């Protein structure tokens, strides 16, 4: 298993810009999808795949010793696909086929069709349970791989998430890290208007997890959080990543409640890409 890729800060920032660009262009080309949901997770997934966190082998994507990333918030698929393409699981040009007939880049992730996708998701609340299964698999096989699961904040309204949190905490599953992409908005309104969650880290902590709350767009804080998580023994770890829905594109992040599940119109695309700077 190759060592994790550890890029310099400037390189990571460039990769993050490239991922943002591909999120925008792929969803605008598709004419549908969730760019704002994807843009909020960019620094976290960049750090996972390019910051020395995850070990993976794009030539052997099912290597049993690989670390796993499960995107439970499956509507963030454009972000997942962009980072997988950047990492080399498939050609970047394939991102243009997002949501098109025949493409394995479906509207939501399909593990049976695309290498690098560890769980089929899109029905919210289920990825952490699947991640626990992967984590228990490491225990059974005596392997030391780690499992990273990302949920959305609105997704924390699903009861299954808390079944899984209870189980992982009670059983001290410490090769498991949950990242909550806390971008504060769900489909129709702010999370605070629907089901206020905060203080989310304290809630999770009550289930015998170790938790931390960070700025999910600061590479400094994201890097430190993963270093911290890897060092925890005997308990699963949760990182509440405070993020901005639509981060990096003013059209979206100035009105984060307005753009759920909406691509950037073609006439706005050039300005968005200019702002991203890729």
């Amino acid at each position: 298993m190759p060592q994790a890729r550890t890029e310099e800060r400037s390189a990571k920032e460039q990769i993050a810009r490239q991922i943002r660009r591909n999120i925008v262009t792929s969803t605008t080309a598709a004419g549908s999808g969730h760019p704002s949901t994807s843009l909020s997770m960019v620094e976290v997934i960049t750090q996972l795949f390019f910051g020395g966190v995850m070990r993976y082998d794009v030539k052997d994507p099912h290597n049993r010793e690989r670390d796993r990333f499960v995107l439970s918030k499956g509507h963030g698929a454009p972000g997942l696909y962009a980072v997988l393409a950047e990492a080399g699981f498939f050609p970047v040009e394939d991102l243009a086929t997002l949501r098109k007939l025949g493409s394995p880049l479906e509207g939501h992730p399909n593990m049976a069709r695309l290498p690098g996708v560890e769980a089929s998701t899109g029905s919210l609340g289920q990825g952490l349970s699947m991640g626990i299964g992967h984590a228990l698999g490491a225990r059974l096989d005596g392997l030391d791989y780690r499992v990273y699961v990302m949920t959305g904040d609105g997704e924390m309204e699903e009861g299954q998430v808390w079944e899984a949190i209870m189980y992982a905490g009670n059983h001290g599953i410490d090769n498991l890290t949950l990242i909550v992409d806390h971008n504060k908005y769900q489909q129709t309104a702010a999370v605070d208007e629907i089901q206020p969650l905060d203080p989310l880290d304290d809630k999770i902590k009550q289930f015998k997890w170790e938790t931390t709350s960070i700025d999910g767009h600061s590479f400094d804080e994201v890097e430190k959080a993963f270093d911290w998580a890897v060092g925890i023994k005997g308990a699963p770890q949760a990182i509440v990543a405070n993020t901005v829905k639509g981060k990096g594109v003013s059209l979206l992040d100035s009105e984060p409640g307005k753009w759920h599940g909406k691509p950037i119109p073609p006439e706005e695309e050039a300005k968005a890409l200019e702002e991203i700077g890729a």
Partner: protein
Amino acid sequence: MTFGMSRITLDEGDPTRRAFGDALAEAGSDERIVVLDGDVNNSTYTMDFKDKYPERFFNVGIAESNLVGVAGGLAACGKIPVAASFSVFLLANAYDQIRMSVAFPNQNVKLVGTHAGISIGDDGPSQMGIEDVALACSLPGFTVIVPADAASTTAATHAMIERDGPTFLRCGRPKVPVVYDNGDSFEVGKANKVRDGDDVTIIANGIMVAMALDAAEGLATEGVEARVLDMHTVKPIDTAAIEQAAAETRGIVVAEEHLAWGALGAAVAMVVGEHHPTRMSFVNIGDTYATSGKPDQLLEKYGLTPDAIIDAARRVLKD
């Protein structure tokens, strides 16, 4: 692959859930097998596996959604997860998890639902899995098995584990009569002809197979020779056996301990309608939930008896 039943020695009339538990513990020497429990292992009999292989047994608590999701993750690691709970809680409570973690990615997860049907008795309708076969059959790629007795459940358990792909095995709570002799065989997807006859065919599974045999004896006293097919595999269904029955007998009765919609009756009717239309009638719970009561009282009340099958056969044979 055909699984002989000769190696199985069971006390006459064991519950199918008991046979499943024994077979699972026996199959457990295969280290790929992991068992997931929703804290009902002394009801599903996965406790025997738990005692033998505690490191591969996970009681996730009363949380069927998480149970199925975890099973999906373990399957992705190459394990053979056997997820067992009461049929209604597993199939109905965790249906979307089964869809997302098992069926849609076509994962090698084995779902075993016990306490199926109204024959659980006193506990009442909230505990009765009577929609479970329809729910499982509706999932693309699923194999659905409803064995008739202990010996065939043992064989079905081994066959399910050998066979790659998502599977639902349905077991019951009460003791059930012995249908099979030592030496009979069991093959997934292939009906067992447990009685020959050329006048009418009774296609049944689960506890209704023994009743179908009783009904056939009763019909024989009227000079009607009934063929009885144990259609233990509802999906994939044995199309050839159904076509043959439709061609060689004057009609088909389908008997199952399930609601009317979407299970064995529907599966047989699809084959009959497309390949060899013939007269049919159906014995099932109908379109209603049951009540509490003793198993025999409930089976009588909801029309799951040999007499009900005989009546259905008479309807089919009526000019």
